[in-house]
């Protein structure tokens, strides 16, 4: 093959218009194939990355106490051990809950103030829950009496089975 033949020509062996259309076809195909790969990868990386958004928490009812051991009519805090899944591990930690028993009915309060999450206590002389941070006051049933909290005390789902009080301590919406 005489290579000089090609060298002398100003353009390649193909005429220009055809070459242009081939060129744009190849450009388009390159972009399409690149797009296919990126979308397969992007879709899977995306759902992996944002999966925590819709991860559902499993209901995990925890046995706290025998019903009869909770004083009637007086708010009482009870410490309990909770075993929680944490990624690939299971963590055990001590948590606390405030109970108010009225006969067979039990209310379980999230132990954090609805304002900024400080731990409140029961003032038995004044019959109110007192939050130490901004001196918010809550009634026995959790209603805001004074101070900045935006809503009553958060409650945990609670049920009594075979005389044992169980709670579902899921963090309420809006908790810090």
């Amino acid at each position, binding site marked *: 093959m005489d290579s000089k033949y090609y*060298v002398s020509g100003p353009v390649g062996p193909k005429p220009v218009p055809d070459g242009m259309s081939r060129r744009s076809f190849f450009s388009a195909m390159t972009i399409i194939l690149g797009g296919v790969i990126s979308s*397969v990868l992007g879709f899977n990386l*995306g759902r992996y990355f944002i999966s925590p958004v819709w991860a559902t928490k499993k209901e995990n009812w925890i046995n706290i106490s025998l019903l009869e051991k909770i004083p009637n009519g007086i708010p009482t805090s009870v410490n309990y*051990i909770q075993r929680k899944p944490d990624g690939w591990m299971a963590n055990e930690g001590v948590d606390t809950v405030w109970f108010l028993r009225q006969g067979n009915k039990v209310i379980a309060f999230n132990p954090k103030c609805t304002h900024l999450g400080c731990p409140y206590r029961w003032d038995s002389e004044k019959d109110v829950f007192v939050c130490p941070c901004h001196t918010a006051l809550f009634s026995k049933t959790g209603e805001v009496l004074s101070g900045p909290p935006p809503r009553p005390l958060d409650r945990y789902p609670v049920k009594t089975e075979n005389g044992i009080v169980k709670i579902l301590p899921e963090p309420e919406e809006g908790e810090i």
Partner: protein
Amino acid sequence: MKNWLDERIGWKKIKEVLLDRKIPRVTSLHTLGSICLFLFILQVITGIFLAMNYSPSPDHAYDSVRYISEIPGGRFLRGLHFWSATAIVIGVFLHMLRVFFMGSYKFPREATWWTGVGLLLIIVGGFGFTGYLLPWDQKAYWATVVGLNLAKQMPYLGHYIAAIIRGGSEIGAVTLTHFYAFHVLLLPAITMLLLGSHLFLVVWHGISSLPERTKEGSGQLISNDNWKQKVSDRYHELKSQGKPFFPYIVYKDMVAITFVFLAIVWLAMEKGVHLEVVADPTDKFYNPRPEWYFLFLFQLLKYFPGSFEVLAIAVIPVVLIGFLVLLPLIDRGPKRHPFDRPFITIIGVIGLTGMIYLGIEGYYSPLTNPIIEKDIRVLDGQRLFFENFRCQSCHSINGRGGVFGPPLDTVGLRRSKDWLAEHFRDPEKVSPGTKMPNFGMLDNEVAVLVAYTSSLGGGPFTAQAPALFKDNCSDCHKVGDMGEALASDLSGVGQYREQGWIAKYIENPKKMDPKAEMEGFDGILTKEQIEDLSRYLAAQR
């Protein structure tokens, strides 16, 4: 827009130098380099996302890898990472063969070749070895044991090298963090440097043209003092006849990359990644085998007894790597076609054939130990039992453990799975007045503990089972004091064989082991009897 870009970043110049540059005529084999680049990027991307849910600690590594598989898309990402790692090993090797046989490492591309050899060693040796340990399963652990012991046997410095890589006094927490840091920080940084230089040189010199026989094209170059100039002139001549890099060459690369990507996607979805049971340094029945691309080295070691082993471990690899490094200095001059430099071509063919032969030999070499299938859930339960809840403080198994609670040797025979599950969730409910505390176990913990405890005792067998053994098996086999040990002693068979396997073996031994001398009992004993007997044997621990 383009003007705006041009003023800021010099787009026109970049486009001219990178995208519009002419490429001489190339073959499909020239897409291998781009495929490797793509696979490396895929490794980096999937690796970053995997690292978000991985914990490099012996206590957590295995569980976190399994956790990744439970995240939406996690199993797929892990599959992509694993299979593209395999693909990149094939890719860099084939790319090297292409460059080797086409003589593309010759003037002026020697430095490109050296950076390429560096990348080959880092990717296959560095990433492969360090990434292997991270899942912390049996395969990971034993591959690292073997790898470190090989390093140790290198003369003079072996012990020091092994100690540095291992970090601690044995393979453990420090080894894992070392390997993790190598795998995700150090090696990627080195790779980026080498890869950057490699790619720069590829653009700087241009992609090498196809080799030409000496009679044609470069024929007049032989024994000419001025050959470098002529090679350069010929290259520019071929280059000027070529096509612009974008879109013609990029398109070709992209088609090849798409095929490779789809193959990896298919493998990731269909085959997934196998995770063996968690690393167990006490296992006596494991068959450590290297990944297939190290099989040739594995097989090589078998031919060098005792004091000669240093040949296989140090001398041969050093010679091989030295050959690759020195190649552009040994094989110089303008001749690039494989037929024009028969000596180098023959060395290449012999080396390649040897590797393939050793690899195949290694692949088919028989396993020394029986393959023991283990139920991962049972092992998980066992770990929880002993390590997390420490049930052995109160309960005993095979006479070991506390006496506060009842012994659990045969709890699998006595209690149903439902009973066991209720018992773990709320002991008080099924055994009123029990001293066992409620541990607040999570659902998955209850499930694996049930799997473990119900496996204790090998499943219920009847009172006839020992008699069945005495009548049918005791002439050759032995269990405890019963029978003769002419064939294998089955006293502890339950430790390494599962009941299902034993049942199949009794039915038809040849099916499970072609070399078995035992006759099958299919037809001699009823299905129920075989089942009963297998449960009895599985209970022998």
